[in-house]
């Protein structure tokens, strides 16, 4: 994916969330087993099913929860690429977004 395609996809994802896309922000996976179950769901999607990925992983376009968690601090986030490096997601993301696969 080149830079232009990446930005186009980022815009598309942002528009989906601005348009009210309902995603599964809860329950947050408290254990590895729960985390793994979400990954299993994601693996069943086609690689280009962006909306499906966003719904299952609970994307929101703002910091989340009392601790204001955001992609910026997540271990999967590559700051300079503005990219989520979790293989099951592998999508462009904004630093101020969040999803329930957040890990620090």
């Amino acid at each position: 994916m080149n830079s232009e395609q990446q930005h186009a996809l980022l815009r598309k994802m942002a528009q989906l969330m601005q348009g009210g896309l309902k995603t599964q922000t809860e329950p947050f996976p408290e254990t590895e087993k729960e985390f793994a179950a979400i990954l299993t769901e994601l693996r069943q999607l086609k690689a280009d099913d962006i909306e499906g990925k966003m719904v299952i992983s609970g994307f929101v376009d703002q910091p989340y929860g009392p601790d204001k968690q955001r992609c910026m601090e997540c271990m999967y986030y590559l700051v300079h690429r503005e990219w989520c490096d979790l293989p099951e997601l592998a999508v462009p993301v904004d630093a101020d977004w969040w999803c329930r696969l957040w890990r620090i």
Partner: protein
Amino acid sequence: MANLLWLQGGACSGNTMSFLNAEEPSACDLVTDFGINVLWHPSLGLELGENLQKMLKALTAGTLALDIFVFEGTVVNAPNGTGEWNRFAGRPMRDWVRDLSKVANFVVAVGDCATWGGIPATAPNPSESEGLQFLKRGHGGFLGKDFKSKAGLPVINIPGCPAHPDWITQIVVAVATGRGGDLTLDEFQRPKTFFTSFTQTGCTRNMHFAYKVSATEFGQRKGCLFYDLGCRGPMTHSPCNRILWNRQSSKTRAGMPCMGCTEPEFPFFDLAPGTVFKTQTVMGVPKDMPSGVDKTGYIKLTAAAKAASPRWAEEDIFVV
């Protein structure tokens, strides 16, 4: 000339294989350069049957000096505390271990099984295995917490699964050449010279650890293995990245997470499904922090490190 005897209890022979690959010094150097007389070893010993029994009896009777008793593998107590599941030279191995430990100048436990029970002692521990002086983190083990060898030292623990070959031979040489008294041991009776620093010390992925860039798949050269793949390098005491394996590399350098095998709890989480090669978290935060770091500090550090990380930290810089 120092007499050395090496026996195996509940073992896979991994530490023997490791020992035979030693380089600095090598197993041969022990004999030719350091005057160690290997009385018997499972892979090297010549005596068989009655001759071996005769030698072991001479050792326990004190008519043949035992300077260094090296034990590999667990002390097997099953069934019902008899040790009959692991017989050797006509009697339970545990009985030999008890008698030989009484007459040895130094007792050296090599590998996790001999030190604290290792994998055989993992619940439900059907072989009733224990280490020589520890069972996991609990002090005591087969010989009891007050045991001291004739030289006045407790069991010298050289853990690892397996222990690095040069840790073994260097400690044996120190003891054989009269420098055993110089050894300082930590709370788990590991020689401090090897087990004070961390596996992470010298890891080539430290830059990625510092900038909080994670490896997300095995074999990736970019990224730290601690964040996602369960690496225990930041909280495991070993010199694996200072004294390299095969003089070449280490697990973490090769993209394989450290499993913490020099710590008493190994294997961690009793090998429950999903706990191996996966960092255990609570609400997204690692359960086990790098040694000495608390949760608040960790979160603050992550935010700062991410914000400061350079572009190259996200790239594979190990180009051929």
